[in-house]
């Protein structure tokens, strides 16, 4: 197509070859926007926390209020409940943006989609995973969790929930085009959640029995760095697939 050079009208000065503003500006704006959105719909943000608290409250009533009994199952219980609470909040991660058309605009940004998606996931973790991790020691008291293990509980949940958010976002991105993706997300991501659950609950269990917790936390950290490296690309690809339909 060599003819386009001589036949073109003047004033193509509008054309730019690269976006002017930095990538950081776009990422910061996406972070700020998603945090603002969640703060304006607090109910949505509180849902997983309330669910977490309710489930943990019911266990002493349902099983037995005996501290020794509760303490032995507390690490697993806290982790399972936190994992399900995080799962509960996943469906809304991209759904709002999909329904009002903001998602297709996100995909049309000249900036790399994996990084923009990562910003959204970071907000999800900040508003769901981190509060869950901070709340867990409080609920640990209710389950008579031994005193020395609270810090490990919070740390393992903070690390682990970040992995959960990253993996879960892949499922959320894959199902965002479906009208009812909730159950499907669970089926998709639960198998991938299992290693996180094993090492997360394992860390707390180790803290309870006085064993070395660093091995478990290190594996959680390794899982997080792998997820950080790979999940953004999987999320971006999943979003493209979902919007291609």
């Amino acid at each position, binding site marked *: 197509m060599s003819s386009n050079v001589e036949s073109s009208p003047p004033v193509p000065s509008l054309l730019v070859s690269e976006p002017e*503003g930095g990538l950081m500006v776009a990422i910061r704006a996406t972070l700020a926007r998603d945090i603002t959105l969640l703060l304006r719909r607090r109910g949505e943000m509180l849902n997983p926390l309330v669910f977490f608290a309710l489930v943990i409250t019911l266990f002493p009533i349902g099983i037995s209020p005996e501290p020794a009994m509760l303490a032995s199952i507390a690490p697993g219980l806290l982790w399972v409940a936190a994992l399900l609470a995080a799962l509960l909040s996943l469906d809304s991660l991209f759904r709002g943006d999909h329904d009002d058309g903001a998602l297709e605009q996100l995909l049309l940004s000249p900036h790399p989609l994996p990084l923009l998606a990562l910003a959204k996931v970071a907000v999800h973790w900040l508003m769901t995973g981190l509060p869950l991790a901070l709340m867990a020691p409080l609920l640990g008291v209710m389950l008579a969790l031994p005193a020395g293990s609270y810090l490990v509980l919070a740390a393992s949940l903070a690390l682990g929930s970040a992995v959960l958010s990253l993996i879960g976002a892949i499922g959320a991105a894959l199902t965002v085009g479906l009208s009812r993706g909730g159950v499907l997300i669970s089926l998709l991501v639960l198998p991938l959640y299992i290693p996180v659950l094993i090492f997360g609950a394992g860390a707390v269990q180790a803290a309870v029995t006085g064993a070395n917790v660093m091995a478990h936390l290190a594996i959680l950290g390794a899982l997080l760095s792998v997820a950080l490296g790979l999940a953004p690309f999987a999320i971006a690809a999943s979003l493209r697939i979902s919007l291609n339909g």
Partner: protein
Amino acid sequence: MSLRLQARKLACERDDRWLFRDLDLTLEAGEILRIEGPNGSGKTTLLKILSGQLSGYEGELEWCGEPMRRVRRDFLANLIYLGHAPGVKAALTPLENLAWYQALAGEANAGRNGQPARMAALEAIGLGGFEDVPAGQLSAGQQRRVALARLELIPRALWVLDEPFTAIDRDGVAALEARLAQHVGRGGSVLVTTHHVLKATARLRSVRLGDA
């Protein structure tokens, strides 16, 4: 380098039915290309293909003489796409909505410095006084105007507009039509689907779908 979007032998199949086949079209700088056709004839699909959103098509797509797949980022840096859904967050004010779009588009002054520009864009589109009202409380037409304010705010050569006149009142339609004419007058290009009849000018060309 001059703006030129070209499609050759474009074909798209949906549910065992060809929406269009062997479609050749070219959009050059300073042109409005209007896609016509009855409901369900594939106008939105064509627009999504031409704006690089759908990959399920046959044929070739070129941007400024290069294959679209290779220069996608360049292409996106020159594009504003307004879809069916306005992409306006109900919980955010028009100003906050625009701030995100400005940053997303890679505008240099997306932060606080951009506030006067955003105010001016909303003023120009007829939303003066509504800057701080959550978009969810605005009417459908006003929400559509928030989306249209991006055209004022973010200078881009290629506008791809899917039914931009929906829910806009008569004055707004006239203003938007004038804005389109001004944009192509400056060397920009517009790709638009609409049932609204645009004023015939030398710059306006039409492609009709759904007659096959």
